[in-house]
């Protein structure tokens, strides 16, 4: 009986140790620093000198964490092939000066993400109080799509999103036949 009790206790301890190891591993692949955005932030501040960007929130997910999330979402979008997903939210402080994305050279802003990347803006959205720019980074020599960056400015909040890695599966997901989804909906 005593042995049985000890066995249970050992199992609980082992579970706790395993949980700590897993959480430590995952935490190592996750950070709340905006270090990866500092170069872009500085570039925007240089180009629009009358504003300052104060970090509100930042998160950076590495490959292991994305793999873990991929398992949690039952491989729905297959994000395990991505290297990084980074997000930062900045509060725009200015004396009435507004950021106009048209006046920002985003190629310069994103230069720190690789000298070999050629950036192209594929989507621009301009609405009252909102601007959204989506850029893709291409390595023309390797003929590969290596990065996607999204900039969203809504009132006094600037959101920057960086995604790096293998976009093969993401594009495949985006192009998945509408019929599949329709059939899924019909079935449910």
């Amino acid at each position, binding site marked *: 009986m005593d042995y049985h009790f000890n066995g249970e206790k050992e199992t609980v301890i082992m579970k706790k140790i395993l949980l700590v190891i897993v959480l430590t591993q995952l935490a190592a692949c996750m950070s709340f620093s905006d270090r990866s955005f500092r170069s872009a932030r500085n570039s925007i501040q240089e180009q629009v000198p009358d504003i300052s960007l104060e970090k509100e929130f930042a998160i950076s997910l590495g490959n292991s964490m994305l793999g873990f999330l991929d398992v949690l979402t039952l491989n729905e979008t297959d994000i395990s092939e991505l290297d990084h997903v980074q997000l930062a939210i900045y509060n725009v402080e200015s004396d009435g000066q507004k950021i106009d994305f048209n006046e920002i050279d985003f190629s310069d802003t994103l230069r720190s993400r690789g000298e070999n990347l050629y950036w192209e803006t594929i989507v621009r959205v301009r609405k009252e109080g909102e601007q959204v720019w989506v850029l893709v980074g291409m390595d023309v020599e390797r*003929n590969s799509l290596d990065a996607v960056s999204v900039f969203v400015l809504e009132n006094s909040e600037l959101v920057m999103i960086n995604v790096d890695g293998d976009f093969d599966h993401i594009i495949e997901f985006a192009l998945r036949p509408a019929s599949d989804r329709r059939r899924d909906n019909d079935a449910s």
Partner: protein
Amino acid sequence: MKIFKNVLAPLFCLSLIPVVLAADSDLESHLGYVDFSTLTAIAAIEPTVEISLKAPLLNMITNLIRSEDEEAAEFISKLMRVTVNVFESDDIDVDQVAASMSTMAEDLDSAGWDRVVRVREDESHVDIYFRLAPDADAIYGIAIMVAEPGETVLVNIVGDISTDDISALGRRFNLDELVDIEVADN
């Protein structure tokens, strides 16, 4: 290293300029290209939504998905430019845009474009045109113009798209309307 940064890198960038300009000039002389500048000038505002997919990106998407989806890859590989411009504003004079659209539609008619859809309903104006190859086995361009109160939409797809590619894509995405293009062709 400093020499590379200061001399070779700018030289490399400069060397790309003629290539980029040549690519744009090739596109503008393509039979499927439509210059919407008169319509955008009337709108007099920047597009609310602007989507621009150019050849390098389309080529990369083609390469990425070729192993997984040959039909979609084949279709995308034939595209040279996809442009979508949406103007949302109540200040846009829809009658003026519609009048200019009619003039542009006449120009497309006389340039050999085929009108596929024309809607003139109250204040709603829609024109959809296809530019077909002489033997109708390929589509060089698609032009879509929509003018409604508060919204103007301009779309131009440029490429050398075969009807087989479109019908294959229709089968792939279960769009009967596109599959029928092959039936009509046969």
